[in-house]
């Protein structure tokens, strides 16, 4: 039987990990500068953490990896973390609730079953959560932070699409559906089925007009939202206040010179969003998303703490990054022994330690096997009294040196 990875799981090879760490490093450095502290939550959580808030759609809950824990006789199931934000909210409620403001960041894997087996079932995210502020400036802060991370990664043609969960929910409310149908409609929209909306006609023609203009048109500035508001004077207070909220953030982004597109469909998956939502894309591929979720923490039994956050999707970003060589290209040194005697090997190790202490990546080639990538090679003599042979690979120059100090000197001078 072949030893394969489980369906939907993948290995990250050295080249993948160079990209992966590069993304992580840029993200982490950026977050620290903006005052976001890193946290990590466990891989296993109780399933009721995700069912009890009623904020993941049944479709998403049907795709979690759930199983019985070792105390499973109690009927309690655990899941492999299916979402990044809800565990952070739990962490905040359990440990940090006394803080007025918490800026947290995380790098985590999330697990979600995919029927086809072609998609990854384990995916990586870099995310931040800004807890404790209801200000529009907080929404702007996380959007700008996301843009800066992407900029530092070299992605400048970033697409930003804005939507508003509160507005979508307020619009659905106007369709005159029963509470059950309304929940189902929201679930369908969040699962990406926007056709569902066109099938339903509201009793109020104004709502239909507003809906179709939001569905068909893509605004490029807050002016679009002002226009929409002007056209819906008869709309419910709920719609109006959500539109106002949306306008505030769009106006703020306008003044910050942040380009965006208003696309009501730019929400997927998460019912916990209450306000402005956004998706980030590169060349048509969605590489991140986020939004405001003011009800999540109170729903989970915490205080009435407003919050917003985003996650960048590491897997598509890795594919878009150019292949990189190792960070900080300091010269690599290959150490060989002329003869593999205990004496020579001892000398190899002590030479390598000095080289590493001096900051050089040093590896051994004891049996002259395999191909190595290096700048310098040093042959350690059979006898301690004999000189070392040091070769600069690029220049093909070879010379003999007598001490470790001299070796360090040669490398430092020529690199």
């Amino acid at each position, binding site marked *: 039987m072949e030893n394969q990875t489980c369906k939907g799981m993948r290995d990250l090879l050295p080249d993948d990990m160079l990209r992966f760490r590069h993304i992580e490093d840029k993200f982490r450095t950026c977050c620290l500068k903006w005052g976001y502290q890193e946290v990590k939550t466990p891989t296993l959580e109780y399933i009721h953490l995700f*069912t009890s808030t009623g904020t993941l759609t049944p479709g998403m809950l049907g795709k979690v990896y759930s199983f019985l824990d070792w105390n499973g006789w109690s*009927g309690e199931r655990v899941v492999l973390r299916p979402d990044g934000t809800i565990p952070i909210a739990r962490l905040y409620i359990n440990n940090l609730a006394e803080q007025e403001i918490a800026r947290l960041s995380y790098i985590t894997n999330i697990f979600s079953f995919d029927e086809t087996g072609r998609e990854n079932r384990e995916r990586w995210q870099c995310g931040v959560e800004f807890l404790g502020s209801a200000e529009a400036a907080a929404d702007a802060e996380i959007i700008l932070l996301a843009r800066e991370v992407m900029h530092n990664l070299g992605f400048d043609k970033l697409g930003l699409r804005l939507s508003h969960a509160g507005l979508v929910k307020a619009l659905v409310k106007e369709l005159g559906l029963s509470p059950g149908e309304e929940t189902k409609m929201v679930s369908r929209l969040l699962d990406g089925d926007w056709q569902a909306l066109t099938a339903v006609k509201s009793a109020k023609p104004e709502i239909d007009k507003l809906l179709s203009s939001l569905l068909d048109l893509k605004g490029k500035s807050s002016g679009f939202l002002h226009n929409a508001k002007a056209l819906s004077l008869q709309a419910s207070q709920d719609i109006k206040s959500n539109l106002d909220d949306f306008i505030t953030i769009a106006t703020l982004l306008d003044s910050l010179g942040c380009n965006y597109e208003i696309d009501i469909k730019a929400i997927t998956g998460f019912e916990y969003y209450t306000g402005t939502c956004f998706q980030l894309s590169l060349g048509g591929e969605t590489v991140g998303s986020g939004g405001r979720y003011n009800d999540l923490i109170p729903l989970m039994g915490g205080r009435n703490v407003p919050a917003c956050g985003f996650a960048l999707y590491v897997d598509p970003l890795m594919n878009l990054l150019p292949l990189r060589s190792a960070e900080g290209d300091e010269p690599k040194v290959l150490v060989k022994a002329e003869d593999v005697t205990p004496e020579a090997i001892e000398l190899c190790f002590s030479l390598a330690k000095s080289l590493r202490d001096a900051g050089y990546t040093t590896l051994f080639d004891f049996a002259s096997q395999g191909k190595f990538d290096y700048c310098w090679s040093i042959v350690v003599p059979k006898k301690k009294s004999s000189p070392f042979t040091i070769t600069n690979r690029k220049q093909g120059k070879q010379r003999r040196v007598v001490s470790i100090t001299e070796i360090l000197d040669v490398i430092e001078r020529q690199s």
Partner: protein
Amino acid sequence: MSNSKDLPKNIRLALPKGRLLPATADLFNELALGFESFSNKTRRYRLHSVRFPRLSAKIFQEKDIPVQVAIGNYDLGICGFDWIEELLARYPASALIKISSLNYGEGNIYVTASSQSGISDIPGLQDKKDNWSIVSEYPNLAEAFALNLRLKVFSIFPIWGAAEVYPPEDADLAVLWGKNEKVITSRGLICLQELMPANAFLIANQGSLENKDLSQILACFGSKLVSKAQTSVPKELKTQVRAATPYYSTRAKEIKLALPDGHQQAPTSQFLKRAGIDLEGYAEDQLDRRPLINLDWAEVKVIRPQDMPLQVANGNFDLAITGEDWLRNHLYRFPSSPVTKLLDLGFGMVRIVAAVSHDMPVANVDELRVLVQSGRLTPIRVASEYVNIADKYLRDNRISPYKLIPTWGASEAFVPEDADLLIDNAQTGKTLTLHKLKSIDVLFESTACLIGNKGSLDSPDKRGKIDFLIRKLRAAL
């Protein structure tokens, strides 16, 4: 499973035991598929068609059929619509095609609650308390129901049977099969929702339907196929009638005891009689799931022995009489479970054996290991009702790699076509011989035993009564 292209393409059918067997046998006689010995009284597991030489059939527990067809061991199968949906609820990508409803098989799958629980409709569930316990033989359907309803916190307890006796004390809801609402109501339950009909259904393996010529067989079904598409849109039921008088007392007694149904019922009732414990409604030929006991501090329910260790562990029962086999199967999975054996009762002895086909050239587990290591049996397919016992046995004996096939009874029918090794109980060994199997190892001997919840033993109020009961039972040994 044969997937060689050179072999003549045999067509294999999986047919149901139990409630659908008589009507399936009638249907097959009518269709003239040539299974001459197939009747209501059939005791054989394997059938061969005299009309279509390439056609054979095997009889399974209904629940196993969708799985067997989906994994491609069988091309076609007949089973209840309920078991198809149970599989698809958890594994929607299964390679299983629903061909057509057949016009027999009664009943529906209902979501039920006790008529005394105060739950009368679905919205009532969403509003009230937030930790619902649900028992079911259909754990996947139960979970899908709970998720779709957005119940906030819930626990699903998979059980082997007797779901109707759990509410209200030992579960809030039971998802179960019932002939109709009237029958459910007569058991002191109310129906909250009708999830789906449980009629017989013809299914096919997707690959078989795409690559194999099944037309001759499908043509025989011809007129029996129901053209109307069957869907499983749940029907919410409005329950107006509430049971006026409880037919059992729900006054909580101090000690809750579970007694077994099935094979263990007769010896257990005899043993209890010897111990001077009188039960009204629990005898060799009589089964009331809530029998009355002549101890005023105890109440009794009759459930499946397989379910007892878990039900004692979660505190629904203080004590239970079950088999050592099921206790071990539980403890191997949950080593820190608060269930403990209190007394060996000595009766109902079975051996838990590892068995293989007569034709397999191994005499013991060491030879089996060598055979598996040689690569001629890779991975070895192991069928068992005792999933955790089988798992541990294979690990302990370093048999690897293996695939474990959980079964719901009649496991002996799996070997040799659908499994290579069987971990099963054997009383006399006659069943093994009858199915051309041989035992290569005895894992342990299992007898009936009294098990208890450690927490109950720690309670001073309960301890005295439990000790009293142990003394009585010990005297009858």
